[in-house]
């Protein structure tokens, strides 16, 4: 069973985010990056399926040079090869439709049974790229998947619904699945894996190679302004050494808020 995993690299979870000088994005200086969390779970799920059923795991990622770091991490964890969409043209292809079109073009000649993505990225959080990709490739899809059971020619998946409800859905393969964080336990790359990754193929695809142009990837929605959210409540910050802060807080909870 061959599985393609779409990976996105995003600023690390604990990054202190500041608004950039153009006020349209974050200030990317001093930011370190990592694999978007839900994508890491999608990769792990693909590796587990490969270990059970054989086949190949191919990772694909769009982005600048730094993205290679996350691609290498995926290869070290056990992915077999990678496709890196690497071209300045992709830097401005910032909406979900443009990213999905780029990935669809690069996957045109790949034969796979499943495509997995995280349910949404930790940066933009569009929750769209996977589904638009599925539509371009003519694939059935299931979102927010918590369990994957491949069967003969079909895949049975457990979808998470709202408020603690679930549903099993069967799809013909090939199919696209968006994976929920926490579906499995993530592995770490081993030293052996890291060494093996050095020999694995990372195919670099330029926009022109995939028949893509800057005009064709023009986003249909753009961030006009980025800013810190206004607080909806006035937070009273309590300062001091831990014991003093604790005493002050308890007093406020008892006599101001009167909740304890």
């Amino acid at each position, binding site marked *: 069973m061959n599985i393609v995993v779409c990976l996105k690299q995003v600023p690390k979870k604990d990054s202190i985010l500041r608004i950039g000088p153009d006020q349209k994005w974050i200030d990317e200086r001093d930011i370190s990056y990592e694999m978007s969390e839900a994508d890491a779970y999608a990769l792990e799920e693909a590796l587990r399926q490969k270990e059970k059923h054989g086949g190949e795991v191919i990772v694909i990622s769009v982005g600048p040079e730094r993205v290679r770091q996350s691609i290498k991490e995926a290869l070290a964890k056990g992915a077999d090869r990678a496709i890196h969409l690497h071209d300045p043209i992709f830097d401005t292809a910032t909406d979900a439709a443009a990213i999905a079109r780029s990935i669809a073009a690069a996957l045109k000649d790949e034969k796979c049974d499943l495509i997995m993505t995280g349910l949404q990225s930790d940066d933009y959080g569009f929750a769209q790229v996977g589904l638009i990709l599925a539509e371009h490739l003519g694939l059935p899809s299931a979102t927010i998947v918590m369990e994957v059971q491949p069967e003969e020619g079909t895949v049975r998946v457990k979808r998470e619904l709202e408020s603690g409800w679930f549903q099993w859905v069967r799809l013909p393969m090939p199919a696209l699945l968006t994976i929920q964080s*926490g579906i499995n336990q993530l592995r770490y790359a081993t030293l052996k894996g890291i060494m093996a990754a050095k020999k694995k193929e990372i195919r670099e695809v330029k926009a022109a190679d995939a028949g893509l142009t800057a005009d064709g990837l023009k986003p249909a929605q753009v961030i006009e302004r980025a*800013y810190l959210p206004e607080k909806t409540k006035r937070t009273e910050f309590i300062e001091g050494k831990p014991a003093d802060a604790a005493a002050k807080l*308890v007093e406020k909870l008892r006599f101001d808020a009167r909740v304890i």
Partner: protein
Amino acid sequence: MSQGILLFIEQRDGVLNRTSFEAMVAAQGIASATGEKLSAVVFGKSIASVASEVAARKLEAVYTVEDNKLAEYTCDGYVAASKQVVEKLDPRFVILSHTYQVRDFAPKLAATLGKTFVTDCVGYRTDGNDVVFTRQIFQGKINTDVRVTGAPPILASFQAGSYRADKAESAESAAPIAPLEINMGDVQIRTQAEPKFQEAKQAVDLSQAPLIVAVGRGIKSQENIEIVQKLAETLGAEIAASRPICDNEWLPMDRQIGSSGQTVSPKLYIAVGISGAIQHVVGMKNAQTIVAINKDAEAPIFDIADYGIVGDLFEIVPALTAEIEKVKGEG
């Protein structure tokens, strides 16, 4: 030329999803600001009562789309039906609530229409005749104003809780309900869904708990949960958690608060090492008093906290436990 606003109403088994009325508040606001006429559409089978509930609100018309292939939700069925509806009515805006169901089909709808979809909005403003949408990035840490440069219809979904359902305006007389004919004959439903179910009956009902101490990723390891447990016990509170804690099985799933767990509104909610990702916040923002303890002063949890302590939870939590013990001893 694309005209008007079309609001998608979500229903399951003939029961209206309340978030549709939240999205209606946004849709009614956009309608009055732009002068566009608002109508709504309901998909399904046996949806007359949902349609009349919607028709009592302030809008021009309610369209119903009924077909056996829409009796149960499927992505293929909904994409095919809604594509025909949008092409037929050609609205300027399609407004949806950002539910799991919308997340499952609406991006495909946008793709097949070749239109853009602004997902998970928390607000909007008008700029002349344009609508600029507000959506959050980096899990609620940063807001953005998003301008659509693509051609209409423009799709936009609103996050649960962005508007209050009870603010949806009613009308003096009911709006007309009109069935829309679509052709589902050739539509192939590729997925087969089994009945939905809940995981082992929820053992703990946190919705009635007056005091909750919740723990998040900041606790770092399972052994450390003990200090939070101690605080909860001392306070006489229930312990709860954000999703990563339950995913790691450090606490059972039935302790999870948020969009995929329980929704609570206690008198007091103490969030320990919880950054406040929107998926968690939707489950607890209606708590009467919220205390946040977090090392990151920029964490979004402080946006909704009444009291905040910025610092090392491994020092603050034991100090708080000791203080509560002391006060109880005086009691």
